[in-house]
């Protein structure tokens, strides 16, 4: 997805309130905002820092979700737990 080039000239280069905007964008990415579509469209179309922040945050969430190494669960752990539960029943 190469969206960085398109229409970037129509965006303002300085965000009015990065702190507020970025937290809002993060809440949207976390699925914590209702009616987020409209807000998002507006922000991304008009503000370059918001646009970049959104895509960076999205990329970070993606790699965290898909690439963060998972620890292999020791095979005996579940049996161990079941045995201990048997003992206290």
């Amino acid at each position, binding site marked *: 997805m190469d969206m960085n080039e398109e229409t970037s000239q129509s965006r303002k280069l300085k965000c009015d309130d990065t702190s507020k905007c970025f937290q809002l964008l993060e809440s949207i990415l976390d699925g914590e905002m209702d009616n987020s579509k409209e807000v998002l469209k507006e922000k991304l179309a008009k503000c370059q820092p918001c646009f970049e922040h959104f895509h960076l945050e999205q990329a970070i969430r993606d790699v965290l979700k898909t690439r963060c190494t998972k620890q292999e669960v020791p095979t005996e*752990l579940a049996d161990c737990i079941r045995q*201990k539960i048997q003992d206290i029943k």
Partner: protein
Amino acid sequence: MSEVQRRKYSQEEKNTIFDGEFMPHIDSMYNFAYRLTFDEDDAKDLVQDTYLKAYRFINSFEQGTNAKAWLFRILKNSFINEYRKKSKQPAKVDYQEVETYYNSDDVDYQSTTDLRAESVKGMLGDEISNALNSLAVDFRTVIILCDLEGFTYEEMAKILDIPIGTVRSRLHRARNLLKDKLRGYAHHMGYDTDEEEEI
């Protein structure tokens, strides 16, 4: 998630809940425990203790409700009460780093100007994991719960016993700190950064 024992499950019901609702989360629980303790044996003990507690207090769990959040809360409390003290690799909290970081107004703006989404996409799982693991435990925890385990802010508030507003601001800080670490990797690895292209 009140601790009041509202029910009295039969032995059979207990088994059904334990096997059907608690045990399926063992992978997530172990991964959470490992990222808190950085030690295989400690993680195993922590998960085991959590399940034993869950069984002991099973009457305060309402069948069919959010078992994963309930279990994570027990695990997190066990970690704070027992493991944090004796952990082989004590949680390193770099308060100075955190403070100086947040005394700067420009911090949010900087975050985007010199770390690119493309650089992040090119990073390896180990680099991401290491960056996450290097965060102080409170910051690490919110990112694990939100991004790795997919809990909502409301669930996280219950697991961590903090208000939703605190969840939101702690996550925001955690993400800024994580970006700092990733930026370090990006520079170290010679990944593309914005600076040169701005001319």
